[in-house]
């Protein structure tokens, strides 16, 4: 089977809608100003993205009020969100939580999906952001009977924006109102994706799935999340490359643009090649997920093993080649570096995904 690695016309239309919204409402000065308040999320921006453009329901079937689109479209949205380091809960609510709920297939989960698609609620999985596909699932939360849940999970992304938390406990999967959880904000490396410790003390939840279904749903969501994260990393890397090229063309030292020095030209040409390759890898993952290709897990692992490094390198080059400006708080380069580095830990590190490649490609360790 051949993967379709191009962008369809409808995907390009979706891209330009998202891009122009973000250009209007999510420029880097705005992102930085919000991050400084400690509350990076912009509810009004999310509302427009979620309902105006329909991004929140992309992966939700039409019969539940969603767009019934595929992972390919979600990937395009993530490219744009990465390009803008946009502080919105798309990855957590519209991808991870949505995929978990799709894996539950109960009236309660269907109801929640409807609310996510309409943008009236935001949902975050109460799982550490570092949790990777193929890794053992945590069992930190316990059910003391009849859906009263206790325990705590750290590094939960976007929990502070969520109305509902999806809680994986020993007895299954539960929807818990965020209001009945204790959220302790953590100081995040990535200022645009807040983290919190979620603590439940005999909190009441609605059961959505039995333990086996719950685990399968979470495992599937982690695979999808990892595959689509590659597109966020691609968009981020692309912004860094474009901005850096712009800068070195205009910045003069030694009586010529610094971008005319071959040492820099070669570094940027290599980075361009890496970004072009990351695009192929990220598109392959999105398409393999969309079509349910049998080797999707391998394609996702390849994309993650490759794209994380490219995003980090692009952001690091961006800081370095901007010189002193790149080290300032005012210039947005740091927002990208922080997101890129945090993304490289999210949903499995490069090393973890290489290990998965070893399994799938049958290249065993010694």
């Amino acid at each position, binding site marked *: 089977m*051949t*993967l*379709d*690695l*191009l962008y369809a016309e409808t995907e390009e239309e979706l891209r330009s809608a998202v891009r122009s919204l973000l250009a209007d409402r999510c420029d880097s000065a705005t992102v930085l100003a919000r991050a400084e308040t400690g509350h990076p999320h912009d509810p009004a921006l999310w509302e427009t993205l979620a309902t105006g453009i329909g991004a929140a329901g992309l992966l939700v079937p039409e019969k539940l009020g969603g767009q019934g689109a595929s992972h390919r479209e979600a990937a395009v949205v993530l490219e744009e969100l990465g390009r803008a380091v946009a502080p919105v809960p798309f990855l957590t609510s519209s991808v991870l939580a949505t995929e978990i709920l799709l894996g539950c297939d109960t009236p309660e989960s269907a109801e929640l999906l409807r609310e996510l698609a309409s943008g009236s609620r935001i949902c975050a999985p109460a799982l550490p952001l570092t949790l990777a596909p193929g890794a053992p699932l945590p069992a930190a939360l316990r059910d003391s009977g009849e859906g009263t849940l206790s325990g705590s999970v750290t590094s939960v992304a976007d929990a502070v924006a969520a109305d509902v938390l999806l809680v994986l406990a020993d007895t299954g999967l539960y929807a818990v109102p965020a209001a009945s959880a204790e959220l302790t904000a953590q100081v995040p490396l990535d200022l645009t994706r807040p983290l919190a410790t979620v603590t439940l003390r005999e909190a009441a939840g609605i059961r959505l799935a039995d333990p086996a279904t719950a685990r399968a749903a979470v495992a599937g969501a982690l695979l999808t999340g990892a595959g689509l994260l590659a597109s966020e990393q691609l968009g981020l890397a692309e912004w860094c490359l474009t901005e850096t*090229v712009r800068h*070195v*063309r205009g910045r003069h030292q030694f009586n*010529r*643009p610094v*971008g*005319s*020095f*071959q040492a*820099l*030209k*070669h570094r*940027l*040409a*290599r980075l*361009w*090649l890496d970004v*072009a*390759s*990351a*695009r*192929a*890898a990220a*598109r*392959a993952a999105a398409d393999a997920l969309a079509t349910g290709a049998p080797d999707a897990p391998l394609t996702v692992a*390849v994309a993650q*093993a*490759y794209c994380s490094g490219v995003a980090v390198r692009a952001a690091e080059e961006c800081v370095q080649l901007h010189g002193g400006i790149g080290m300032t708080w005012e210039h947005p380069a740091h927002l990208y570096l922080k997101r890129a580095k945090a993304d490289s830990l999210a949903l499995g590190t490069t090393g973890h995904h*290489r*290990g998965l*490649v*070893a399994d799938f*490609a*049958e*290249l*065993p*360790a*010694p």
Partner: protein
Amino acid sequence: MTRSTVTAEELSNRVRDLLAAHPPATTDRTDFLRARFDAGLAWVHYPEGLGGLGAPRTLQAVVDAELEAAGAPDNDPRRIGIGLGMAAPTILAYGTEEQKRRFLRPLWIGEEVWCQLFSEPGAGSDLAALATRAVLDEAAGEWVVDGQKVWTSSAHTARWGILIARTDPALPKHQGITYFLCDMHAPGVEVRPLRQITGEAEFNEVFLTGVRIPDAQRLGAVGEGWAVARTTLMNERVSIGGMRIPREGGMIAPVAATWRERPELRTHALHQRLLELWVEAEVARLTGERLRQQLVAGQPGPEGSGMKLTFARLNQEISGLEVELLAEEGLAYDDWTMRRPEGVDFTGREAGYRYLRAKGNSIEGGTSEILLNIVAERVLGLPPEPRDDKDLPWKDLAR
């Protein structure tokens, strides 16, 4: 080239007719290739009468796949790569009708091998600095060529060479150059093997002394040779685009096979490097596939200029890893005999050979440094470095 209406289905019919008239099992190889050329199925995007049908280039894959499935002989592209990849597109773009008819058929069939007489001892990356002279003998209607070429692959098997020479030293270096088709059997052409890093001699030195080239074998106008040469160079770099490789095809295949078959060789450090390179090889494959899909969709991307860079680096790193993985066996080399191979054969030899031959991947056809300059300037729009040789007459340049 004009778009035509030839469809995949019509091509399939033509392939079927060709196979029916010339069953591969009972037809002589050369006869089959001639018939294939005359049926327009050699390179389908070429014009009718010249081995093609003016069909979209992407349909070639359909033809190749069907002929391969039928067990048809191929024209050994590894042996005639320079002719196919560089000489042919340049002759097609700049040749007279007579030149196209004379040269393209034997070139494609492989009856006539071509070589590229571009590089000189004093002109490699700075190719336009070349010093080989061609002076017109007006009475005879012939050019008289003197000079030396170097690193010339296949010159020892070649019947023809594409040659660039200086015809006006008083002009700036890019302007005084003319492009010729050189008969390698002409008096005054001397080919000497140049032994290389692998022990064999794939390339040669070529000495040109009073070589007479009829004006009818000039390609393009006098003094326009640089523009013609650019067509050749562009085609040299883009020859990857249409190719499709399976997952784990290419250089990574023998290393992965050794890894699976020989558990005693495995170490943790090698495992990490193998996985890293396996992932990069897979991403390079996907990038090539994406490029191919862009071409099919009529939206060619600039990725092509980068693919040669990627493959050069990967081939070198992967073959280096392979030698290390083989441990004691990696200390051995298969054969240092000076052979005169007809083409490059990466798979027919052992790891040490692959390691050494791959070193040429970042030099031949434009070095990686030069390709990075091209990407930086043409794709990213970064400014060129200041230079002072552009407007000076060639004869006044420091050498």
